[in-house]
């Protein structure tokens, strides 16, 4: 009984964090901020739901598979977030109004190349609203 109460707590906590991630995905104004909400909240919510399922199942082979899925998601999700951020930054996806960068290396390189060779075409057509 006490195990089921703890499992219910972890299940509701994980569901809460997944909901917070989707709310951040809907409400935040930018690719980078949406990615921030997605990465953190999805990893935490997934881990908590997996802990609840481990407590409820209680079989050693299925617990091993669940631990493996948890480790897989906990390594895959930061990798995906990193590659999406790198792709967005290299494509020149516009940030929201009011954000700033310190020591913007890629933009300075792009500006130098544009002034040297030719006017470059704009790759990404988003507004970032």
């Amino acid at each position, binding site marked *: 009984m006490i195990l089921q109460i703890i499992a*219910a707590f972890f299940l509701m906590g994980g569901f809460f964090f997944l909901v917070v991630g989707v709310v951040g995905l809907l409400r935040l104004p930018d690719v980078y901020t949406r990615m921030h909400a997605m990465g953190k909240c999805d990893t935490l919510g997934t881990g908590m739901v997996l802990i609840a399922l481990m407590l409820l199942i209680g079989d050693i082979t299925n617990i091993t598979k669940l631990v493996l899925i948890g480790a897989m998601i906990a390594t895959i999700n930061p990798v995906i977030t990193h590659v999406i951020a790198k792709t967005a930054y290299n494509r020149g996806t516009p940030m929201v109004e009011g954000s700033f960068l310190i020591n913007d290396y890629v933009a300075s390189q792009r500006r130098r190349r544009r002034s040297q060779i030719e006017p470059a075409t704009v790759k990404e057509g988003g507004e970032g609203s």
Partner: protein
Amino acid sequence: MMTTLMYSAVVGLIIISLFSIARAYSGPTVLDRVVAMNVITTNVVMIILIFAYIDKSYYYIDVAFVFVLGAFIGTLCILKLLREGHII
């Protein structure tokens, strides 16, 4: 008690997956759609695992495992296509 809680969690996960589909439909850039599809993948994996506990059919855990790996490879292929213009 536990089965009711899990069914409500599954219904909530389906609802927030529909909201993520709304973001994937109206995302300004293509990377918003990639992010939304990643969220939908995570929610679907959670739905599969919770159904594996409700139905007491634990071989669905392997299905979730393969789903995670396939989604990872697909997202990496899409991002490499966006960055470099070709996959292989």
